[in-house]
């Protein structure tokens, strides 16, 4: 009996190799883990956003729901889950249904390749950078589908603006990431993290690295449709933009996708420029380096990503909004030329070996 139903027998019967099935099982485990991770992350991030925004504005955030409002996101989630589901009358049903899933699937796929620690990286694609750029296109598609499928001219307008903005700022993002790829020489994300053993790229690739970091920061904020670049969902311009007609669970998918995207971009920034899970080493101070090594690498990664998320929220609650033409002008006339010049300079720096701790 046991011999008939073992894994190898099964796979022989189904004509699949057992190695493939085993890998498939690992991927399934990874997906379940990622989904759990997303839910927990959303809880923490939404609460953090409200508290940080409140303290920047000299007030207290949610205070009454749990101790100091910890259970606030849980209440929000349960309430959104139980709302009535409204589908507009003449909406394009297929697009209306699929749009939130596209946005969420984009974030899920991006989360699969981020290296959290030397052992935890779900899939290590050897074209990691290109994969990340390609998969964020799914999110843009979801936005445009949401706007068109709602049968609402203001949603369509907001979606067109949001789509144009996200597509434009992809360019700047990719240009900054390419700087680091030039330095590392490989597209694989784990290689990029391992190459920062002697020092993080933000100061190793001096000048060029700092400029690439700032460019990535600005274009990440724009990629996420956050203030100061959130004209597409700016509340006083187009009521809620492309997700005006969504309510309940569908809206919570968009909401979730925005926050998880923020985590992904912060993780990308910390992987490429701040060393990923690499601890902070200074040159030859072995005692200091050993002390830094005591902290587990996952904690390093989470710490760096949290600092970047705080910077995103800090930027959001400080600056006013840009108009849509100022937005596009910023990208095509300022950031993209700067990006190309930066890439060119980076190529020169790499070729002449003009960086520290070489």
């Amino acid at each position: 009996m046991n011999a008939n139903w073992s894994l190898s027998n099964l796979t022989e019967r189904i004509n699949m190799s057992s190695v493939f099935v085993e890998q498939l099982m690992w991927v399934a485990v990874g997906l379940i883990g990622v989904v759990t991770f997303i839910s927990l992350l959303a809880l923490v991030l939404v609460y953090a956003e409200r508290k940080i925004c409140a303290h920047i504005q000299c007030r207290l955030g949610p205070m009454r729901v749990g101790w100091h409002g910890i259970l606030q996101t849980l209440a929000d989630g349960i309430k959104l889950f139980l709302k009535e589901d409204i589908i507009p009358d003449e909406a394009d049903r297929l697009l209306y249904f699929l749009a939130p899933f596209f946005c969420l699937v984009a974030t899920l796929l991006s989360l699969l390749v981020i290296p959290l620690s030397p052992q935890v990286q779900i899939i290590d694609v050897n074209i990691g950078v290109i994969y990340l750029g390609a998969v964020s296109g799914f999110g843009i598609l979801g936005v445009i589908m949401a706007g068109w499928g709602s049968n609402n001219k203001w949603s369509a307008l907001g979606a067109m603006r949001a789509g144009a903005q996200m597509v434009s700022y992809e360019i700047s993002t990719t240009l900054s990431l390419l700087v680091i790829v030039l330095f590392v020489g490989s597209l694989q994300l784990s290689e990029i993290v391992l190459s920062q053993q002697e020092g993080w790229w933000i100061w190793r690739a001096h000048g060029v690295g700092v400029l690439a970091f700032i460019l990535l920061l600005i274009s990440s904020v724009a990629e996420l449709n956050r203030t100061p670049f959130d004209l597409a969902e700016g509340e006083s311009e187009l009521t809620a933009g492309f997700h005006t007609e969504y309510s309940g669970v569908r809206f919570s998918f968009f909401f979730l996708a925005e926050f998880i995207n923020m985590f992904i971009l912060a993780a990308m920034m910390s992987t490429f420029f701040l060393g990923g899970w690499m601890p902070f080493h200074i040159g030859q101070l072995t005692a200091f380096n050993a002390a830094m090594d005591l902290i587990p690498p996952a904690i390093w990664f989470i710490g760096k990503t949290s600092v970047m998320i705080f910077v995103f929220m800090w930027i959001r609650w400080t600056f006013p909004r840009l108009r849509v033409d100022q937005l596009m002008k910023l990208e095509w006339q300022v950031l993209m030329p700067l990006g190309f010049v930066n890439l060119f300079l980076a190529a020169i720096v790499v070729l002449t070996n003009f960086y520290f701790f070489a």
Partner: protein
Amino acid sequence: MGLSEDKPWLISSIDQVVNWSRANSLWPLAFGTSCCAIEMMMATNSSKFDLARFGAEVVRPSPRQADLLIIAGTIVKKMAPRLKTLYEQMPEPRYVIATGACTISGGPFVYNSYSTIRGADEIIPVDVYVPGCPPRPEALLYGILTLQRMIKEGESMAWTGKRKKPVLAALPPAITGDDIYSEMQVLLDEQSEFNVRERAKESTWHTKEYDEK
């Protein structure tokens, strides 16, 4: 009193969780017509009286994503059909707070006005009334506390769409239970249950679109 009927244990425990979550995460719709809107802005968005403490800081501009409609300001006859449209666009567990004297009964315009309607409950069913002209931000916060009380006690999955208002639980401070005679008590208990959906349909306000249906 008359409101806690015998519900099975499972339904009442699910109700507790569901009502807790709905009461603690009310998302208001950004709707303000006149002077009461200033006080509502102070109550929701300022740093001194902060509605975010109650979890209600996410003021959504789109009615599809909001579930609390704080009517702040006079409702004129031109605005009335649009208010009804907005109310109908909100998804189902939806609550209405009528702020200020103009929305309770017409306020300063109740006597002699050609253009206002005498109270928002001519058009949409209202849950909580907050009197004042305009009410203090703290009075509006008290109104939201009253609404939370009503959600936690008066709604259940066993009777969806109906709301049993625990009217005697939120009395204006000038009244005590002693002053309400016993017949009045029974009357309020009986009449305090109302079906929100029926009530929304039977409003006496006739708009052109409404009449053509």
